[in-house]
């Protein structure tokens, strides 16, 4: 459904060009949920913005290709892109209040979005809007359809945003931290809703989050990003039980879990590098407990290993060669 190859996003700054995304490739199939995880500055959100063509200047997609349903969508004009956004790609952002227009009722916003993308009469659009609100679980939808965003609670607002993202029946939904602003009990409801609706419609989902727990319970596959690059990508259960990349190993160990009695958490020394100072070779090597000479010298390619793809010299045969 979505296919990204060697994506590269650059920001031309006064002091030089910063590379925010460097050689990222992945695919998402129909009805599949891909979780994209990483810490702040890993490039998760920029990847999402690049797909929908919303990287703000001075940033630009410098290289690579993005295909949706086999068709290239990078390099489209602003007008062509606008027809893709909302119609073929739906978006759910962290803060539901900023993604809804406070001056229009939720019904009007749904109707307007549907009519601008689909060939519907006002009456048909209204009926579909109502059906959608019922489907996303707004109680008494018939009365609430005329209500304004501020009259809804945070969880209900996020449901409206989901309805808005799905109203034109997109092929792909990009959900950027959709539940970070919500309480846990509401978060569980929203995640279940996204999962169910997308599975029923065969919509592909790119779920961007910093919360491994959310990914573990929602995604089919996970991509771990570090300093704008892919570290590892694979099925969720493999990656969580037995991560290969040392960064993924550290990340899993750092998360406190509900059913363990660890006295100390695994600590990854140091912090994520700044974009202006990404180390040469493997970006993770200064913090990596298993780094060897080659890691500082050469950037590891993405190689297949145990059903996953991982970018680490430990798995591309060079570790044995060095010994």
């Amino acid at each position, binding site marked *: 459904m979505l296919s990204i190859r060697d994506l590269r996003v650059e920001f031309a700054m006064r002091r030089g060009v910063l590379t925010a995304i460097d050689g990222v490739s992945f695919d998402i199939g129909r009805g599949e949920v891909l979780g994209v995880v990483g810490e702040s500055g890993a490039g998760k959100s920029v990847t999402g913005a690049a797909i929908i063509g919303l990287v703000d200047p001075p940033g630009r997609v410098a290289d690579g290709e993005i295909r949706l349903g086999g068709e290239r969508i990078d390099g489209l004009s602003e007008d062509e892109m606008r027809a893709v956004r909302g119609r073929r790609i739906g978006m759910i952002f962290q803060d539901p209040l900023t993604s809804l227009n406070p001056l229009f009722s939720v019904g009007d916003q749904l109707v307007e979005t549907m009519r601008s993308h689909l060939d519907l009469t006002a009456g048909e659009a209204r009926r579909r809007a109502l059906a959608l609100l019922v489907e996303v679980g707004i109680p008494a939808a018939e009365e609430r359809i005329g209500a304004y965003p501020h009259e809804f609670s945070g969880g209900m607002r996020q449901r409206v945003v989901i309805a808005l993202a799905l109203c034109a029946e997109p092929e792909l939904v990009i959900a950027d931290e959709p539940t970070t602003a919500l309480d846990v009990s509401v978060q569980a409801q929203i995640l*279940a809703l996204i*999962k169910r609706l997308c599975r029923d419609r065969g919509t592909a989902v790119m779920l961007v989050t910093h919360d491994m727990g959310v990914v573990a319970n929602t995604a089919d596959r996970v991509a771990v990003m570090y300093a704008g690059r892919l570290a590892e990508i694979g099925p969720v259960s493999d990656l969580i039980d037995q991560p290969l990349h040392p960064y993924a190993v550290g*990340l899993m160990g*750092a998360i406190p*879990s509900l059913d363990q009695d660890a006295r100390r958490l695994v600590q990854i020394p140091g912090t994520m590098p700044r974009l202006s100072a990404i180390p040469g070779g493997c970006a993770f090597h200064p913090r990596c407990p298993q780094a060897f000479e080659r890691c500082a010298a050469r950037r590891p390619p993405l190689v297949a290993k145990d059903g996953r793809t991982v970018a680490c010299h430990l798995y591309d045969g060079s570790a044995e060669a060095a010994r």
Partner: protein
Amino acid sequence: MNGSPAVELSGVSREFDVSRPWLARVVAGEPRRYLTAVKDVTFAIERAETFGLVGESGSGKTTVARMVVGLLPPSEGRVRIDGVSLTDPGSAAARQRFRRRIHMVFQDPYASLNPRWRIERIIAEPIRAFGLARSNEEVADRVDELLSLVGLHSGDRFRFPHEFSGGQRQRVAIARALASSAELIVCDEPTSALDVSVQAQILNLMRDLQDRFELTYLLISHDLAVVRHMADRIAVMYLGRVVEIGDGRTLFQSPRHPYTRLLLNAVPDVSTRGRPDAEIAGEIPSPIDPPPGCAFHPRCPLAFDRCRREVPALLDGVACHAVHEETVAA
């Protein structure tokens, strides 16, 4: 030092006046309106223990923290620190002594440090305010010692907060808490603004410092895994009341209150992969107009008549009619 617990809350409540302005109220003929943020909370924290307080937004966790450090007086009930009440008029001198021994670490390390002060001045402030050092050299030595304790460099003292990352700022906040030799540190969501790998560093640091100085922590968080990892005992709050309290491991392994069960079912955790999606209905009601009886009854699967009329008391660590009656029957 005596045998009393480090912190003791007995029947503490706190109300906030949320009425509209006087004129608007008089014109519309409305009465004053109050929001009960915390209602009848009783618990004690032992020395050198980590006490965790969990709950969703609006459950009153932060209000409890603010009352413990004395930033807010309780409307009813008493907060005692080392057996001395913070609100007794007669104990001003004692209060001054205790003031030094309680410190707070806030959620947002970007907002809780003065951006115009150098790190040295930020950390030295409690030392100077409580007169804990005799000379400037002594203050400087102490700042050095504190910086190395929290894993920062001596040279960092001349820098400003904006030059640090979120995790480093939280380290500065912890150093400041230790500067007055505080024994009780109230941490309100100390790692919520941090990335997981940085969170692990800060939680490990808090553990190490506790072992070293026998610190008592009151840890407040909405992240159940963090609280589970850190706390010896845990209290779960819902709409201003404690609904369950107990030893951390027991509470997580066999939760008794339906709300605790719901909360544990809802948390996405790496260890709960593949679990069927929990069916949870509803959201937290408004604290201005809470439901009568047990505040949780509209969302509770076990609710019966009595829950709608009577507020359940906290007996044997749990406040739930259904659990109580089951225990009596058994």
